[in-house]
């Protein structure tokens, strides 16, 4: 879902950077309040963790593999605003150093994967889990649907961003200047693909990791209560 340079026009890039600036400012204020001085190493390690999650190949039926984004998982572990910063840092490092996602599209990529995804996912997680105990099965299910909803919401935003390009930027003769596909194509391929396949990878990964952490050290799942 990392959008490269050249797919989005200047308006979309500019607007998404402008939208992310206050979100980042709010997130860092929120994190300072809840995590205090420990924030720096925790966020650094959270960012490295969300970078590395994308490196794990997960086997899916049919003999191939896919990978999860993990932003919802990080939100469950660190709280939504800390996840916003950690995933943003991971995305900036990926774009700047490893060419994964464009530099002009950092704003849009962060909006989709570091804002919409963890916040939507986290809201669903809280909504389903309610006040159930940390070790309950309900939390596992909540985590799974949170992961699924989070990535589908992010894919929805990305396909809207792709889809409005031919409308925003074209020459008088009808030649597109950026991503040439309209909303219809972008929504069916991108959103469809995420609802059918990639969303379920996220579902499985988020579910199983939460289940393993319940068994190993459930205190790690209580972080969120402190960091809302």
């Amino acid at each position, binding site marked *: 879902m990392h959008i*490269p*340079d*050249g*797919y989005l*026009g*200047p308006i979309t890039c500019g607007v998404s950077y402008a939208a992310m600036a206050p979100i*980042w400012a709010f997130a*860092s204020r929120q994190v300072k309040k809840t995590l*205090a*001085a*420990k924030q*720096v*190493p925790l*966020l*650094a*390690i959270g*960012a*490295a*963790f969300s*970078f*590395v999650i994308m*490196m*794990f*190949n*997960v*086997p899916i*039926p049919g*003999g191939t*593999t896919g990978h999860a984004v993990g932003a919802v*998982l990080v939100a469950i572990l660190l709280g939504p605003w800390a996840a916003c*910063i950690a995933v943003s*840092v991971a995305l*900036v*490092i990926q774009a*700047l*150093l*490893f*060419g994964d996602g*464009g*530099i*002009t599209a950092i704003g849009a990529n962060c909006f989709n994967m570091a804002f919409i995804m963890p916040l939507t996912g986290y809201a669903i997680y809280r909504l389903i889990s309610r006040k159930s105990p940390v070790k309950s099965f309900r939390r596992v299910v909540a985590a799974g649907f949170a992961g699924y909803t989070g990535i589908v919401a992010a894919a929805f935003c990305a396909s809207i961003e792709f889809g409005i390009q031919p409308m925003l930027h074209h*020459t*008088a*003769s*009808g*030649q*597109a*200047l*950026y*991503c*040439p596909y309209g909303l219809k194509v972008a929504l069916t391929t991108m959103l469809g693909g995420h609802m059918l396949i990639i969303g379920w990878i996220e579902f*499985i*990964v988020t579910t*199983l*990791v939460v289940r*393993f*952490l319940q068994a*190993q*050290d459930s205190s*790690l799942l209580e972080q969120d209560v402190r960091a809302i």
Partner: protein
Amino acid sequence: MKTTTKLWIGIGVLAGLSPLGLYLSYKFGAHTAWGEWSADELRGFIGYIPKGLQKLSSLWNAPLPDYGLGNPGFKHLSLAYVISAILGIGVCIGLAFLLGKLLSKKETNAVSQKKAGGFLERTILGTVSLLKETVSVERVAQRKGFLQDRDPRFKCFSVVLLLIAVLMSKSVTELSVIYCVVLILVWVSSIGLLFFLERTLLFVPIFSFFIVVPAIFNIVTPGEPLVSLKLFAWTLSITRQGVDSAIIFFMRVLDSVSIAVLLVLTTRQHVLLKTLRIFRVPQLFVMIMGMSYRYIFLFLDIIQKMFVAIKSRVGFVSSAREGRRVVTSNMAGLWLRSYRLQSQVYDAMVSRGYSGEAQVLDEFKSTSGDFIFSALALCALIGTLWLNRYFR
């Protein structure tokens, strides 16, 4: 000098000389090569166009007819020739590379692909190739060269200006000129051309190329048809607008990727993250980024060791279901380890005098060359905005 370097110079010289034929045929009043006449020229010779020829000649309209890039005057025709030559060379190299990669990959992966345990190998190979890639990039960044000697702050700033210029541009010719400038910068920064093209052509641009192919048809981009194919009541045609959209999209992606890779190849990675200060990114974020960058490699090392251990002890994983359990338990394990690590790191920071205030050292020096370089990048951006007035 290596043989390949000599060959590259030879190809470059030939591309530069390509307008010579244009000049010579103009000078001696020569005609089109024997047997390569176009339909119109043929009419001049024999008075009519053979019917079969007429039918076939409109079957395919080349994207760059007569190497001319649209219809420029004679003066610009030689420039168009050189650009066409470079584009042609680029496309040939890209296809050859892709073919080579596809063929060589099949042999090594054919065995592991089928097994459910293939994901273990893939993850191991993924982490190893990332580490290897980082080392080879850092090696290039430590060489002496034009871009390596620039002040990272100015270089980063200029690259951002260039990227914005590429983002705003509406002309394929301008994007091609920028690509030529990038290749010159590659040359003066002592980066191997093949090394550079392997990193810039293979992944994102080729991927984008395949993505954009359906857009040349009238189902996506309606417009003036170039080639039509009638299937019952349904007409599928390639449109001029579609082809133009595809070309400008591909060139823009290629330019952006090349410029970004140029920055990464000529700057030490930990320095590059520090330059974010000039874009008013708060110190706190820059510090988190710097720390996170180091932990990424620690984590990659941990994953690689865990997976090699699993592979050497268990050998294979029986099903995809079992595989998912292995992967996710490793993710959970990684988080347990990193959470413990985090509190130790914090204690270590405090014992070394960390007070909760982020401090990043600035150790940059700028020269007049840096100012000139940034000024040129600014000119490119202003020039693009000025050129855009002519495209509506």
